[in-house]
């Protein structure tokens, strides 16, 4: 029996596999028992209602997709009143992804979530535009990332997971800044900016122009970011980007991830999350790992744990 128990700071998960924000919803309970998941991660909620971006909001590429959904939603009040109770029907710890346009709005919303029972952690989606910095994402720079996390930290006792953007030039510095500002974990990475053009119409394929790139094609980049973050911080790193199979998840864990998130793969295979959990257990059994947690960091420089075995 392989022990899949996973600790992300104060939060204990039955296993290290959870969905990625924005690619998951209670609708997936139509396909399998969501109680199997390590955690539940909501779509990003914003303080105010938002209608989202113009259509088309999604297009496919070679082994991946671009999206510019634009975080449509009914805002935090509605979320607390209606979505949280719906989520609480399920067993796994609930992680609420939060997005906002200013440090103050992040702090205010975090405080309200801290007052709401049933939430295990906040995932701070700081890859979204910072309205006070010309729309450049908070997670682009160590300073703005730290300011957003610190503002939340001051108002909220819940664990805060900082979700970083691959669009920065120095992920290690951003991760360290988030850690120093009080983040309890790093989630890396959100989508990377991409573009596709419809050459018959000579316009971008997405209504919004550029979009976020995700899926298997993005994996080598997200894996590299995970590896860089794992070497930069002491808090747990949660790896996300292109994971579709248990083998992908093992790569992220060996690169230093304590847990993983599965996003786009659920669109292609709604049972992908369950397949990753089952496959991870099988891999550990086959290779003689008693605990999946032992995979974390095995391939990091200087680890040499497998070689020594």
């Amino acid at each position: 029996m392989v022990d899949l128990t996973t600790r992300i700071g104060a939060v204990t998960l039955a296993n290290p596999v959870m969905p990625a924000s924005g690619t998951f919803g209670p609708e997936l309970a139509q396909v399998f028992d969501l109680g199997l998941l390590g955690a539940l991660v909501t779509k990003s909620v914003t303080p105010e209602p938002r209608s989202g971006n113009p259509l088309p909001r999604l297009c496919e590429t070679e082994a991946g997709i671009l999206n510019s959904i634009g975080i449509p939603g009914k805002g935090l009040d509605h979320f607390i009143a209606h979505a949280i109770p719906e989520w609480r029907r399920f067993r796994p710890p609930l992680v609420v992804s939060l997005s906002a346009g200013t440090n103050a709005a992040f702090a205010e919303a975090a405080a309200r979530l801290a007052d709401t029972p049933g939430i295990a952690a906040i995932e701070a989606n700081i890859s979204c535009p910072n309205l006070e910095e010309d729309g450049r994402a908070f997670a682009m720079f160590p300073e703005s990332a730290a300011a957003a996390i610190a503002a939340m930290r001051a108002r909220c006792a819940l664990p805060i997971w900082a979700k970083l953007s691959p669009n920065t030039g120095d992920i290690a510095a951003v991760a360290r800044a988030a850690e120093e500002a009080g983040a309890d974990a790093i989630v890396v990475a959100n989508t990377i900016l991409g573009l596709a053009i419809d050459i018959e119409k000579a316009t971008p394929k997405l209504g919004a122009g550029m979009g976020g790139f995700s899926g298997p094609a993005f994996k080598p980049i997200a894996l590299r970011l995970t590896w860089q973050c794992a070497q930069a911080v002491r808090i747990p790193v949660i790896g996300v980007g292109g994971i579709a199979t248990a083998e992908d998840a093992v790569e992220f864990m060996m690169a230093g991830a304590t847990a993983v998130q599965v996003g786009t793969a659920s669109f292609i295979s709604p049972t992908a999350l369950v397949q990753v959990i089952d496959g991870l257990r099988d891999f550990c059994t086959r290779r003689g790992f008693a605990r999946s947690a032992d995979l974390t960091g095995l391939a990091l420089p200087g680890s040499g744990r497998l070689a020594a075995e």
Partner: protein
Amino acid sequence: MDLAPFPVAERDAVVIESAPVGRRYHRLRLDAPDLSARGRPGQFFHLLCRDGGGNGPYLRRPMSIWRCGAEEPLGFLFHVKGRGTAALAALRAGDRLSVVGPLGQGFSLHPSWRRILILARGVGLATLAPLTDAAARLGIAVDAVLSARDPADLMADEFAGASGALVTPVFDADGSSDPAAVEALLRARFEAARPDAVFTCGSNRLFLLLQRLSAEYAIPGQVALEQQMGCGLGMCFCCVRPIRAPDGGTVNLRVCAEGPVFDLQAALGW
């Protein structure tokens, strides 16, 4: 992986028939008795479009249920349009096809109804076809106006099967499918024997016409909409369409989750 008793399955099904229909269409029948029994007219499946060798586009493609029922293989009828449908059309009997479904909200038929009218064009008839059987089983008479380029494109058999629906074809070739001609035809039907409900799919022009006429005659209606999809399950919000809300404004609803079937008056043209 089929994790019964969940209402939506992800499953490999074996192709038992794969055949071209007319010049531009193709039909597939799958061996998946329980899924076929579970499917309802107007619902759809999300298909992984891989030809026999595993080649195809990254995303799945939504496809309406064309044939379903406890005694029928699960069937799809589609226009071979781009990369995804081309891969589907390349499947052969014996190949496996990964399906996710049944998905979405299908048509509703009230047992008290006596007669419905269906207005379809092109491959929209695939979506409406299973209504004819369902209506027949409830003893509801089906009056169908099918619009096509020409007789070769009509697919009246694919539509009505053995349901006994009364099919009136109209064609571009002879002008009988002109909006004005169809309007006259519908008005005549509505006057002669007012249907209890009307249904449409596949043509914006016919949708707008039917919406206007059925409002005038105060006949309830349903329309099946299409939209590009990501997840097919309601999680990604890429498939939204603006739908009229009771307060007169519009709300973005997900075609995959709140649809694909919407109230005829609430839907907007596309």
